[in-house]
């Protein structure tokens, strides 16, 4: 069996091509059943996300080119698209390259943002759709399970997903560095900007218990507070609110500093020096930089956050190099597993078949031999066994050896010749 993959991703194709080719869940099963004919393409799976469409199939040995052409024409058949429109964006991989590509996709090494966690779920989803459609078999089952295993290894053994690479998620990550857990923490939003809202959403998802919103316009504060199940608080009692909050996100358009060192000292006093974390994503800044020099107050402005994000991205890229090594070694293991999976049962079944034939012949002739002593019975059984073994030995050996040097077709020829699959 060979593995053939045809696809396009965010690097090979612009979004207007990707969106044309995307498969929705509903269409996916139907398309898979169309694609997998059991003859040329024996197994199939489609991973379709906003950044990629990957068609993964299993085909016969030596029929990779045919399979690739079949998938490509399938893609143009199921979309009202001129082939030239997207053909130049497609890539195709066979065998080891296809396996490696699949492992990299599942491990999020091929993602736009390296290490993003969603793609693993998308691969799982694609697999369960294919299982429902009945288009997976020995090869793809094993491939997908192996890919999930690789993704898990990469995630736990490298730091590709260790640090936040978006400003809004940075709030959660830094929050976790300061407070052991975000559970039960209080968040204060000063101003109702979009980015502040996103950061607050992440914080609530990470366990923050209470959200307070304050804004010059009370209406906007009320509206935002309602979304989080939080409360809108008065804008003029800012110091009190600052003292009540563990994490503060400022995003107003105020031209002056809203949080001054004097205020911050008062806040520290009220908080009995418990640490607090101020995120200032407004330009011009809302928090006086001198506030950051006070003990137990941690102030990050937009530039600080961006600097951390870009250093995290570089860190992920470094970690990705280590992840590639893991992928390489797993690709080798997969190929070995795939081979072992095929040769063992075939040889066993072949030997059994020959013994069965000998035994059946013996049973047919047995009554012509008349009464035999137990020794004679044993001698006949031994004669049959050793004859079959001696005859089949060179054959099986040859099969095993030729299998090592990729002559997989001979294997299925022998299977056919002896009717092992009937």
């Amino acid at each position, binding site marked *: 069996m060979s593995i053939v993959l045809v696809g396009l991703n965010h690097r090979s194709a612009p979004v207007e091509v990707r969106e044309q080719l995307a498969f929705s869940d509903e269409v996916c099963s139907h398309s898979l059943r169309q694609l997998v004919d059991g003859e040329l393409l024996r197994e199939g799976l489609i991973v379709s996300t906003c950044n990629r469409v990957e068609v993964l199939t299993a085909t016969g040995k030596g029929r990779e080119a045919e399979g690739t052409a079949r998938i490509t024409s399938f893609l143009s058949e199921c979309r009202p698209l001129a082939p030239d429109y997207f053909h130049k964006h497609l890539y195709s991989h066979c065998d080891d390259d296809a396996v490696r590509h699949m492992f990299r996709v599942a491990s999020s090494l091929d993602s736009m943002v390296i290490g993003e966690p969603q793609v693993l779920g998308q691969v799982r989803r694609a697999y369960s759709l294919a299982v429902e459609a009945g288009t997976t078999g020995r090869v793809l089952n094993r491939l997908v399970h192996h890919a999930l295993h690789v993704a898990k290894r990469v995630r736990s053994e490298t730091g590709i997903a260790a640090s936040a690479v978006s400003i809004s998620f940075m709030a959660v990550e830094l929050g976790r560095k300061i*407070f052991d857990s975000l559970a039960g923490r209080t968040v204060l939003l000063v101003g109702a900007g979009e980015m502040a809202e996103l950061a607050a959403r992440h914080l609530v998802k990470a366990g923050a218990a209470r959200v307070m919103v304050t804004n010059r316009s009370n209406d906007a504060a009320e509206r935002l507070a309602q979304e989080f199940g939080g409360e809108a608080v008065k804008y003029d009692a800012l110091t009190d609110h600052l003292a009540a909050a563990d994490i503060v996100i400022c995003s107003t358009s105020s031209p002056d500093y809203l949080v001054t060192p004097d205020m911050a000292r008062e806040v520290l006093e009220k908080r009995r020096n418990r640490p607090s974390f101020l995120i200032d994503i407004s330009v011009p800044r809302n928090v006086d930089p001198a506030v950051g020099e006070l003990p137990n107050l941690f102030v990050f402005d937009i530039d600080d956050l961006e600097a951390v994000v870009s250093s995290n991205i570089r860190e992920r890229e470094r970690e990705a190099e280590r992840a590639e090594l893991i992928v390489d070694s797993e690709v080798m293991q997969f190929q070995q597993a795939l081979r072992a999976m095929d040769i063992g049962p075939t040889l066993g079944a072949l030997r059994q078949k020959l013994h069965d034939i000998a035994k059946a012949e013996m049973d047919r002739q047995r009554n012509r031999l008349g009464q035999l002593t137990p020794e004679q019975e044993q001698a006949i059984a031994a004669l049959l066994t050793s004859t079959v073994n001696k005859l089949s030995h060179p054959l099986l050996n040859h099969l095993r050896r030729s299998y090592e040097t990729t002559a997989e077709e001979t294997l299925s020829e022998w299977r056919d010749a002896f009717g092992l699959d009937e």
Partner: protein
Amino acid sequence: MKSFLILVLGAYIVAAVHAVLAFLNKRRILQRVSWLAVIAGFALHSVALLSGWALEGRFPLFYLPETLSFLAWSLVAAYGLLLYRYQAQAQALGSFTLPLVAALVLISIVTGSHANGTLGTPGEIGRGWIFPFHTTALICAYASFFVVFVASVMYLLQERELKLKTFGAIFHRLPPLTTVNDIATAAATVGLTLLSLGIVTGMIWSSERDGKLWHNDPKEIFAALTWLLYLLLIIYRASARWRGRRAAWLGVAGFALVLCTFLGARLLGGYHDFG
């Protein structure tokens, strides 16, 4: 007995190396190896200490080698308790503590081979419960203060990075600020309690023997200073006037005093100069 300690040392070295590697290179398998080695080392070490006690017929805390070995044991015990309480967050403590543990056991083995029996015998002072209690409490107090020290260093490293907004490779491996802060506070409280018990039992024992509570010996003076410093630390932490960086610096300074008490007094001589 000694070959047994070498086994213990081997386990601790494996644990320390893997803990440091796990700290530098986030791999769960390394961490797991480290844990298994710590568990094996700790079990063997406990057996070694108990059998030493049984064989010699006296509490094994008199000579320097024994003391170092017991100190190592109590550090591992403290690490185990922290792992139990803070789980993965306390992992990083191992990479700081275990190398010291291995070093202590090594020194204990090396000095044990020629120091034994040269410094007088424990004689009658080893009997009764007060003297063993005195030494055990103090060694455990030193171990607690070491935990305070490590947690304080972790706090300072991390606070510095947060203030400067440049995050090095270790940043992501260190436990959160509030966690190290909690660990330091808890360990300081335990340490101060044990230190107080150690000092009080020392006084009782001394007054029974010599009729004097206090000998003005360097070790006693340092112990008193240490006691005052940690009391100050706890009071300040509790009153919330000092949290974070300042308290952490005090935790580091306190450990310097502890080192003076434990080792310095030995060099300066005086009443406590045995073994």
